[in-house]
């Protein structure tokens, strides 16, 4: 079962320090989770902390977990996105994830400098990600030689122009950076609409869904899987995680007291109980195939992850890529002979 933790950008601390984020992801790793995701909260006024440099700065924290950051896909240029994540994936040793944000360009059109948002932001986002993936593929995995005696650092036969000409982008390529260690970073898509579901079915390695019951989760998963199959993708190529707010306590009573104090925040599914009760619940969902895991949205990360860390779990594995950890296939390079 896959477990991730999400930190919404709306919760940016008053003093934005690296120490804060280091502590946060160390807590995630100690709790036995697989990845920490920095997700842009919807809305035109949420802080514009850029998740990409944030996860690059967290690459040096000695934990093995994955690190994801939101990217405004309906606004970004493919070359910039490909170049930034080619770097981040190398710097993190293959632990990076792109979290697809399909609404930033619409919600923030005025800030980004558009008089009007792009006429079809979803089509632009699809083409942006497709073009970005071509750029990642423009270097084959064996393009770097470092052949000192032969005098070749790279093998030009393994580096390709992409010559992309589409509706929204014209990009010649190749990228001027080697292919990410994982081939492509893990692509994560929060599903909140028919458009984002369709996007997830085409591209997502990981889809995040927000049902409020187990039955709803089961049918949401089935709907996504059906669309995934419709795109000719194997069902094992996608992991579907359910958003869950854990409100934990050492005892049921303590958890309930916290829940009463916190109240209901947002519409996501809440779980109130002890860490071992949470684990039981997750196993039950897993057993009936309601999802592949959970994306935890902690109300108080140090408290909730501290409690989760008391459960027995396998220690955080270092030296593994995020794709390996999630048992996701490595993308085949379209240019490899």
């Amino acid at each position, binding site marked *: 079962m896959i477990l991730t933790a999400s930190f919404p950008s709306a919760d940016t601390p008053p003093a934005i320090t690296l120490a804060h984020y280091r502590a946060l992801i160390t807590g995630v790793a100690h709790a036995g989770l697989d990845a920490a995701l920095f997700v842009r909260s919807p809305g035109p*006024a949420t802080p514009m902390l850029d998740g990409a440099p944030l996860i690059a700065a967290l690459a040096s924290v000695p934990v093995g977990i994955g690190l994801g950051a939101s990217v405004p896909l309906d606004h970004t240029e493919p070359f910039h996105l490909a170049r*930034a994540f080619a*770097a*981040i994936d190398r710097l993190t040793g293959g632990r990076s994830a792109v979290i697809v944000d399909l609404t930033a360009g619409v919600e*923030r059109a005025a*800030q980004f400098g558009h008089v009007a948002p792009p006429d079809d932001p979803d089509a632009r986002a699809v083409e942006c990600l497709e073009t970005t993936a071509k750029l990642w593929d423009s270097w084959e995995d064996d393009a770097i030689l470092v052949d000192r005696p032969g005098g070749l650092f790279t093998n030009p036969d393994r580096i390709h122009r992409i010559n992309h000409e589409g509706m929204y982008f014209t*990009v010649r390529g190749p990228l001027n*950076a080697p292919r990410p260690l994982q081939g492509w970073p893990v692509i994560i898509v929060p599903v909140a609409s028919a458009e984002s579901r369709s996007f997830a079915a085409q591209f997502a390695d990981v889809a995040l869904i927000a049902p409020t019951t187990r039955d709803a989760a089961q049918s949401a998963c089935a709907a996504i899987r059906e669309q995934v199959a419709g795109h000719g993708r194997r069902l094992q190529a996608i992991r579907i995680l359910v958003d869950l707010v854990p409100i934990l306590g050492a005892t049921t009573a303590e958890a309930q007291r916290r829940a009463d104090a916190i109240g209901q925040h947002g519409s996501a599914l809440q779980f109130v109980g002890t860490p071992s009760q949470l684990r039981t619940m997750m196993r039950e969902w897993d057993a009936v195939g309601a999802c592949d895991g959970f994306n935890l949205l902690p109300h108080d990360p140090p408290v909730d992850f501290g409690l989760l860390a008391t459960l027995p779990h396998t220690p955080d594995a270092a030296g593994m890529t995020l794709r390996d950890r999630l048992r996701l296939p490595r993308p085949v390079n379209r240019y490899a002979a």
Partner: protein
Amino acid sequence: MYIGQQLHFGLFIYPGGHHIAAWRHPDAASEQVTELDYFRRCALACERGKFDSLFVGDALAARESRGRVVGEVAINNLDPVSVCAAVASVTEHLGVVATLSTSFHEPFLIAAKFATLDHLSGGRAGWNVVTTSQDQAAANFGREPHMEKSLRYERAQEFVDVVRALWDAGERPIAHRGRFFQVEGSLGLPRPPQGRPVLVQAGGSPPGRAFAASIGEAIFTAPTTLPEAQAFRADIHALMAACGRRPETVKILPGFSPILGSTMAEAQRKEVELDELVHPRVGTWMMSEYLKFPLYDLSPDAPVPAADVRAANPDLSPAAGAFLDRCVREALTIAHGGRILARSRTHQSFVGTPETLADHMQTWLTQGGCDGFNLLPAWFPAELDLFVDEAVPILQRRGIYRHDYAGPTLRSHLGLAVPEPVLAAA
């Protein structure tokens, strides 16, 4: 003439080293150039040497020769903002300067990127503002042909105005309507710890110099002689005065590529060893790119066809023009010119002992040629370590270089104040 009292150093990091063939040297860390440990190692050397900053350049197109990637040279730097974020996370004092182009980005996201970097680093971020001279970049953004040069700088000026307004406003909204950009809104972030991340500029053309004098707080340049350096510095100071700026508010940092030895003979031997590693094809390619004229069909031993180059390129950059003059003056062949470019891409190169290096730097400082240097070690990390461990202590003993950092931010290293926010009337 304003004379600085203390030298300032920044490291220009580059995969393998600044000598184009350095990556072939057995001591160069060429296999590691995409790994965090490579950057960590170089960054810790900079901090040991009390440098102001580590600087990462940028390019937005692969290096090609006649439509094919040039395999004989190392890869480009990785994405600068990502590298700078990683470097900031493994250091405590060192400034981090990332290059981003105003020609191929939009101001809102760039303001957000540098605000993020400045917050996370606790006030150590700088932005090298470039307009991108590499024409091929336009093909990666559907914007061929690249804008005409004066327009690039007009866009750059407005771009910087918008970014500064967004930083100054912090969580309050701005409303900008200009020729290139319309931006209404706010970053929703507190003002960055430095008020504004430090602005670095390296334009060499007349509009480039004017832009540097108007916004630059550190300026990179590439003079090879002291008179050239003095003239450039005096010109920038005069242009600054015309904008109402004082000369102490900028650090002018010529590029400087050292190869050090414990004796002159040892240093020279090292340079020859590196020069012999330059592939002849690379020399011809570098000359063709730099002079914007294809030389591939000529023999490497042919003289540089200066008249043809000029006829084909009436608006050659001042730096390339000066280099072409030198080729004529010294009757250089294409191969010889290629070796000069291979050594340090026309930045000043230096071969000698730590003592003679200290003499040289002291002269440039006290004669008003510079406020410090942008260091381009021939290869990494060995030449960087040599400079830090052998040359820096001599400069410290002579009282022209700091023994320790005076403060925690890049502005404090550069002796720059936090700028007052300029806020539009509400």
